[in-house]
């Protein structure tokens, strides 16, 4: 079977890859491009562990076919820090100890960043509702919500 040639942009870098039609963006990120920060938690779009943005839109990479990223701009957790300089959300997740096992953390960060880009001053309810598509089994969410609100407050200053 002929493989598809895809040209896309990932974290600002031009990327080319070959993929099968049925391969998802998550498959390609993890298996072909070795960007393993996006995790497979359910492969059905219900857990958010593979959250990335595509042309600015928050998506589950497990629900996007890799061929759909032709010409698109994809952002993953690997592109969130600027070299050694963490994104404020990453720093606040550290400060608030808003993580335990860490598998959901990249997805939460990508989703939270997407929220703050749309809404720099979210209410607590807005944070809780926006992040309801990201499952965490360890933390109980309290520190995650606090970290996001705290980041928003700091970024507005």
């Amino acid at each position, binding site marked *: 079977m002929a493989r598809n040639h895809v040209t896309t942009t990932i974290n600002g870098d031009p990327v080319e890859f070959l993929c099968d039609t049925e391969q998802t963006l998550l498959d390609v990120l993890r298996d072909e491009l070795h*960007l393993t920060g996006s995790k497979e938690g359910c492969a059905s779009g219900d857990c958010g562990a593979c959250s990335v943005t595509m042309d600015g839109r928050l998506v589950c990479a497990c629900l996007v076919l890799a061929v759909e990223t032709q010409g698109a701009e994809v952002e993953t957790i690997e592109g969130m820090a600027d070299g050694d300089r963490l994104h404020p959300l990453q720093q606040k997740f550290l400060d608030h100890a808003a993580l335990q096992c860490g598998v959901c953390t990249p997805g939460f960060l990508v989703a939270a960043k997407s929220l703050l880009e749309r809404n720099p001053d979210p209410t607590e309810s807005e944070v809780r509702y926006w992040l309801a598509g990201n499952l965490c089994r360890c933390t109980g*969410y309290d520190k995650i919500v606090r970290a996001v609100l705290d980041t928003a407050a700091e970024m507005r200053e």
Partner: protein
Amino acid sequence: MVSSHPATAMTDSSQIHGTPGQALQHDSALKHTTGEALYIDDLPEPAGTLHLAPGGADSVCGQIRRLDLSAVQSAPGVIAVLTAKDVPGTNDISPTHCGDDPVLAESEIRFFGEPVFAVVARSHREAREAARRGQIDIDPVEPVLTIDQALAAGSYVSEQQQLQRGDWQGALQHAPRRILGRTVSGSQDHFYLEGQVSLATPGEDGGVHIHSSTQHPSEIQHAAALALGLTDAAVTVEVRRMGGGFGGKETQAAQWAVLAALAAVTTGQPVKCRLDRDDDMIMTGKRHDFSSEWTVGFDDDGRILAADIHMASRCGCSRDLSDPVNDRALFHADNAYYYPAFRIRSDRCRTNTVSNTAFRGFGAPQGMMIAEQMLQSIAHQLGKDPLDVRKLNFYGKNQRDVTPYHMRVEDFILDELTEELENSSGYRERRRSVDEFNSSNTILRRGLALTPVKFGISFTNTALNQAGALLHVYKDGSIHLNHGGTEMGQGLFTKVAQIVAEELQVDLKTIQITATQTGKVPNTSATAASSGTDLNGMAARNAAQTIRQRLTAFAASHYKVLESEVAFRPDRVRVGGIEMSFADLVMQAYLNRVQLSATGFYRTPKIWWDPNKAQGRPFYYFAYGAAVTEVMIDTLTGENRVLAVDILHDVGRSLNPAIDAGQIEGGFIQGMGWLTTEEVVWENDGRLATHAPSTYKIPTCRDRPEHFRLQIFSRGENQEETVYRSKAVGEPPLMLALSVHQAITDAVASLINEAELPHLDAPATPESILAAVDARRASTTP
């Protein structure tokens, strides 16, 4: 609001960075936020890695009549297809070696989805697609699915166990008041975000190396050795971190690790087995659901005189850990309350469902729920506040202090702890405001409850309460730390490193945390029973003390001072009148041929258990806590919301408040899920209906209570000699969530003034709340 513990260290020049008590962040926290932390599926695959997928039965129960795997064999990308016949050693991965947990089913299907064969293919996708092509024909027999069916059929995985004391029959008969009740709690899927995964690589001399996401590397090692016909020494198991465990990777990781190892040895190539979420939920065990009947006799004040409790649990198709799980349920059917006379029986039902297993709390939540429902029922009948009845029945100090298993409760702190929470949460005022709200609202109703937790710490199997550690100090003063505990997000590695830092007075960054590996520390116990830090922390401390003693003896002789003149200060060592860096002393010691590597060992003191007499001291100590929860229900829809939670929890002297707080919050919310949204549904034909997050609902951000106040009990101190007087924290907080269920019951009860408490099964889903509301309202209609 929550006491938010900043995870940054508060160090000064008189303290090393890492001293126990500091709120330090998880050792991998930075890598978690950048996505750089590697889980097994993230490891670069060795060249030639093949992928394995299990092929499960599409039926529930019966003898296998015909197994046709020709379509599997011929599927694209398939390299090998394995069946039970390909297992060269013992086809059993039972943790108790009782022969009822085959790696692959041989002749009989016992639950829907039971693995019968395994496909090894070039890619994960090809393996999974081929695995669906198997034809497994069976002679179906009527399955035993529910606890009631098993009890009726006399279907058990092991013998009934019981605890009894005194003339419980007489005491029940003569009690001024009696209530008969039934307590039902559902199953729960672990839903660790990282599913089961293993990567096995064949080694020299027939050996194999296995990366396994497991809480119990030693058991994986032994299971693989038995199945492959190897010695334990020929198998090495390694795990750097898991993406969550919660008990679900204690025994349940073995099958996938053994299959990967079998395939690796068979094909001579590395083999990875990563379960898809649906397969994971269908093929691995969960929390035991319980159905229990009880009679409690009490006086007019609400003091319990006697109890007769009959609990039964759904164990699934094999024993697995069902005996210790149900033993722990027996040991916690008292929770915090003294029963003068009692009989407590436990039936362990064999059913045609996947074999249930360890899950945070390990039977204790189910046992404690019975105690709490008895107490709530008593209070309701007497028209008293349940908190007052709870206090009345608390264990005493030096009297009324003997548990049903004949262990005295010597460290009971719930009087003080409960009083503090009662005041800090404003319990009494909130009770009044809840009553007020309910008197003016018919559709929305509120409920409130305060429940305590007393949780026994130690493996009930005494032999398991041991641990080892390995410490190397290199010439530059850096330290390689290894121990038998596994990291699943709970922060164990951080805490153990803090302990070593403290003993050697070196900065935490000096210590290299390393993957758990059976080649470094052998014969370890599972990281389970909340005991990870208690056991491994002590073993690592022992190793560090050995190093410190060697360095002290060397320094004393080398610099001709007394050993008492050698002192380890923050990041330096004082030897008589001079000071040097830790690294300098280490280099001196090396040049003078002092051994700079040590093992450490620990065995928990005081504990023993005589199973024949059902007596002993199974627990070294108890961990305590209490929670106040306020809920609101909608009586038209059954919708419910947890409005406010106040927690006060005892962790002894906290080793790391940031990590402990995380365990408490996470445990509470996980318990809340078990009791509210998480419903494991089996179809009438034995198929699991809830095998993905689309149908199985763990709590989300939206379920987080708006008011969530957590405090660590500041007066906490372990009176036993645990590591720096800390207490275990993994499991106990889960049971704080019993207050959620009690508060919902309270809200339903408020509808009608009636002596009988409404019956509300767990999980209290909207459907079951609505049913309880309807039943409540119907009870007054003639």
